[in-house]
């Protein structure tokens, strides 16, 4: 239900919150733009504007390099509790 609502409204969540800078270490804030398999969600589904989508893309790629979020989630390499690090 919450998933469905996420795609219906078409506005940029980050513009509304007036986000100027995203921190790659803050994994909880990246959750919105990641799919269940940790892919970057497309703009047509999240409603992000181009500027914030570009920002989130670089931030997610940095977080991947820093081993904070996985590159891929396959059946072999399952992340058992992906957000257990979060406080």
């Amino acid at each position, binding site marked *: 239900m919450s998933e469905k609502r996420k795609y219906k409204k078409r506005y940029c969540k980050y513009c509304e919150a007036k986000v100027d800078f995203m921190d790659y270490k803050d994994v909880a804030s990246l959750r919105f733009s990641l799919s269940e398999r940790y892919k970057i969600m497309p703009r047509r589904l999240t409603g992000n504007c181009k500027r914030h989508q570009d920002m989130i893309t670089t931030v997610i790629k*940095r977080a*991947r390099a820093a081993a904070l979020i*996985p*590159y891929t989630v396959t059946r072999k390499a399952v992340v058992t509790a992906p957000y257990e690090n979060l406080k």
Partner: protein
Amino acid sequence: MRHYENLVIVKPTLTAEEIQSIIAGVEEIITSNGGEIAARDAMGMRKLAYPINKNERGYFHVVYYTVAPSAISEIERRFRINEELLRFVTIKYDTNREVKAWNQQVEKANKAASTPAKEEAAPAEAAAAE
């Protein structure tokens, strides 16, 4: 001078003192190349999102510093030689907006570094009061 941030992941198999000495070595590399460390943020031992060199965990440490752009290649070269570092991520804060964010993060890290002592003291007082 430009603003930078470096995240290093240290091997989890070392003892606490060895990890501290390696982090001191990392900071020494930065300062010896003309860098000025503004803040440090120890994220501590965390589970890695994917295994690096067969390690499932790692000790995360973040250093905020300013240094001349030409020194970065030397700093990264020295990091690569160090076998105890699983991974390092260097972030450049270039535009005015990013520098502002850098200042905020430095402030936050310094605040976090000074508050834990207070937090530890407060529960002790509360326990004493009970």
